[in-house]
């Protein structure tokens, strides 16, 4: 491992850890502006995480160890995930350990542990949330895998940094297959991160909630970890999107070490635009009934498969 690799790895991890709540704050702020509300502070997510860490944890009497372990595993999975995705530089040692397929597996691990923890207490809301979370997951996961499959076919590798490098250095700017998969990916991103139209992060209504229902029994530091992990997950998904569809501006293998720091403002700009776009998308669309969520995700899956077919037909 060369020093630049270690620097890239640690820089990416710390940027992800630090910027993930900020990204959520930014989306909330944009949403408030778009909805004519007075916006909450950009730093609110940090404050609430900090506040939660300082509280006394209240845990249900009959919670098992699994319940207390799950937040750490979910958080750990998201942090390692952030280490695999080339958000700033492609010289990441961790990507040898886990490629894009393993990244999908990692996200699935987090989801399974979250669902199991939600079922642990045995409340009505918990199992409901676990069931819905798994329902969204089992449809979103193959769609995400197909998105990655198409990018892998184009660049003949499953390592995310290599995909990014390949796509960033191509002269042909637009792949028709990637256009289809981009739509699929956007739908997966919305569903997996509990955004409108699949879920609503701002409500606690039992008829509609998915993600929040799995967290109902958590409090204090466990909840803080779960919230932080959710922010990291959104950040990770955004960075997967950048790596696949707008890979430019990332410091690649040939570039000078200083390029790594030049990629930080690029990432910030991408995140700012993506956050604003996400807020706009959430403002103009309405929440689907839970029964319609499978259709939404099946559409995403079909878009991804269509992208695959287009790639195989056109061979570009």
């Amino acid at each position, binding site marked *: 491992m060369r020093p630049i690799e270690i620097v890239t790895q640690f820089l990416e991890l710390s940027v992800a850890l630090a910027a993930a709540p900020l990204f959520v704050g930014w989306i909330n702020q944009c949403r408030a502006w778009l909805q004519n509300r007075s916006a909450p502070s950009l730093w609110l997510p940090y404050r609430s995480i900090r506040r939660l860490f*300082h509280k*006394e*944890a*209240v845990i*249900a*009497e*009959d919670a*098992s160890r*699994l319940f207390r372990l799950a937040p*750490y595993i979910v*958080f*750990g999975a998201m*942090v*390692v995930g952030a280490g695999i995705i080339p958000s700033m530089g492609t010289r990441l040692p961790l990507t*040898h*350990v*886990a490629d894009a*397929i*393993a990244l999908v*597996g*990692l996200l*699935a691990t987090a*989801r*399974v542990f979250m669902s*199991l923890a939600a*079922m*642990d207490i*045995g*409340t*009505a*809301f*918990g*199992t409901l949330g*676990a*069931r819905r979370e*798994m*329902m969204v*997951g*089992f*449809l979103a*996961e*193959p769609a995400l*895998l*197909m998105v990655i*499959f198409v990018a892998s*076919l184009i660049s*003949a590798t*499953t390592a995310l940094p290599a995909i990014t490098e390949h796509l960033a250095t191509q002269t042909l700017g637009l792949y028709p297959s990637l256009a289809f998969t981009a739509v699929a990916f956007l739908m997966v991103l919305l569903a997996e991160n509990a955004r409108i139209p699949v879920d609503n992060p701002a409500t*606690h209504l039992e008829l509609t909630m998915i993600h929040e229902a799995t967290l*109902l*029994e958590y409090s204090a*530091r466990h909840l803080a970890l779960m919230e932080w992990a959710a922010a990291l997950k959104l950040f990770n998904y955004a960075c997967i999107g950048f790596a696949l569809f707008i890979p430019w501006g990332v410091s690649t293998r040939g570039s000078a070490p200083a390029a790594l720091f030049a990629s930080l403002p690029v990432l910030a700009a991408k995140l700012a635009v993506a956050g604003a776009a996400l807020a706009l998308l959430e403002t103009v669309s309405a929440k689907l009934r839970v029964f319609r969520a*499978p259709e939404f995700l*099946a559409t995403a*899956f079909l878009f*991804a*498969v269509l992208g*695959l077919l287009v790639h*195989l*037909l056109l061979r570009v």
Partner: protein
Amino acid sequence: MTALLHSPLAACLTLLALWGLIGLAGLLRPRSLRYVARTLFPLGALCGAALAWVAFASLAARPERAVLIVGLPDLPMHLRRDALSSVFLLLLGSASAGISVFAAGYFRRGHGTSAGLLCLQYHLFLASMGLVLLADDAYAFMVAWETMALSSYFLVTTQHGLGEIRRAGFLYLLMAHVGALALLLAFGVMQGGSWQFTFDAMRAAHLTPVWASTAFLLALFGFGAKAGLVPLHVWLPEAHPAAPSPVSALMSGVMLKTAVYGVLRVSFDLLGGPQWWWGLVALTLGLFSALYGAVFAAAQTDMKRLLAWSSIENVGIIFTGLGLAVVFHGVGMSGLAALALIAVLYHALNHSFMKSLLFCGTGAVLHSTGERNLGRLGGLIRHMPWVAWLSLIGVLALAGLPPLNGFVSEWLLLQAFLFAHQVPQTFVNMLLPLGAALVALAAALAAYVMVKFYGVIFLGQPREATLLRAHDANVLERIGLVWLALGCVTLGLIPAQVVGALRAVVRQVAHVDLPNPAAPWWLLEPLPGRLASYSGLAFLVAVSAVVLLTVLGVRLFYQQRVRHAAPWDCGFARLDARMQDSAEGFGQPIRHIFEPFFAMHRELPSPFDRAPRYRVLIGDRIWQRLYEPLGSLVQRVADSFAVLQQGRIATYLLYSFVTLVALLAVVL
């Protein structure tokens, strides 16, 4: 003795014979549980471990043969051990070692077959599976195959007092024999006119492509019936749950793999290299089975039946990989054929450990609660921590999550699928990659199924008051479970070594190989230079390092105490176990999304019912559309023959007379 040490085949045979002897020894004192269960079964487990060791040591060894003068005169038994036999013997030995130890603690006094007889059937079952893997002529193979079917039939019907179990056993026996008939025909085709039924003669016979394809399709039918490929799967969800849990583990974990062995043996060895389109048949059946099995598993309410359906899914994934390997091999892409074959063997090994682990886990649950119905379980992680935490490993492995073993084989399979578009046949090369989408869907569904399985049994509130008295597994059971769980973990953490060992097998079986690895020992990089690598060990280290750092950080900076209180549940005070999702409830989205798969019968209450009742019955459309018409057809044909049966001796004498005259007319 020296011959034993130098010849793995002789060592294997000795161990199989020992299994037979252990079985017979059970008859000496058939009622003594201490003698049969606590002495003989652990001895059988030792034999299994020894067999695994011998097989592992001989993975890369040259093939060797032996001829045993037993059986009919002039028909000696030909035996041969090569790498393919070795890898499946390894699977048989290592999985059965864990299952036998578990069984030693599992069998108790009860209704049904006596312990000694059970011991005989169990060890005969093990030995016959070993013999299937070593047979080198059609006679020996069929004898071993039938012994396997019969001994497992008796094991399935251990609780023969129950009508439901007798019915399951009958269905199993029927399907086993339909499959065996197809195999007999396949061997008949493969001898190619030489009328020699040794496998050597079959290797030497040069069949025309049409006959070779006929033989392959017959073999696929025969072995598919044993493996539980859809639509030949109907016996599996009935028979596997009916058997005692260690036997279910053996059947699901090991016996299904003998069918995979059979297809590999026939297509790559006996028929001398497959044609590429055979792969498409296997692939299509495999993909359909994978999806069908996963969807039905999600809708089950009986924990062992759920696992049985999940076995159908995994067999589907194995056959998908096999089909892909055949396609690659047929079009001459040897490196990729090796990759897909390794994925097949890897998944077979993985499934034998994880499914055995879960079946044994359900056995422990069954013993301590007396319940198989998911609707009457729940919260067992508090009363059975050993079983619960070890089952968690199996659950995560079966859900295909890194860093456990189930992920590795699926990863390898997906890597192979990434090259499917390079197959020269147009149209096929566009449809093949879509198979990856279905594999991904089945794998994601498997995670859903496993969360349901684990969540409903082990988590939440106990759904019955009797569950509060549930006790954990006994020591022998725990040892068995730990052994199987260790298998899952080990196979997941050192994928590069496992793939290295399996390379020797595919080299010998299909004459294909992967390039030599250029990666360090802890990294799996099947195709060097392609930038696709994975390391289970480093993955585990990375995640645990982050988790540990987080735990430490939280401990260090925030030392707040934990207060235990009643569950919050949005402020609802009267929480009870009935408010959790039932197994039916958890499967509801799947029933909703995959409605066309199911034959559903709903009974809905009207608003005015005094005792409202809601019931959903789920049927298998294939059973209704295929098997029921087939059954009634057979019944009708049989009825039309019944006209001949008059019940009067004079009529029967008349039949004999007419037959005699007719025969004389032919002869003269």
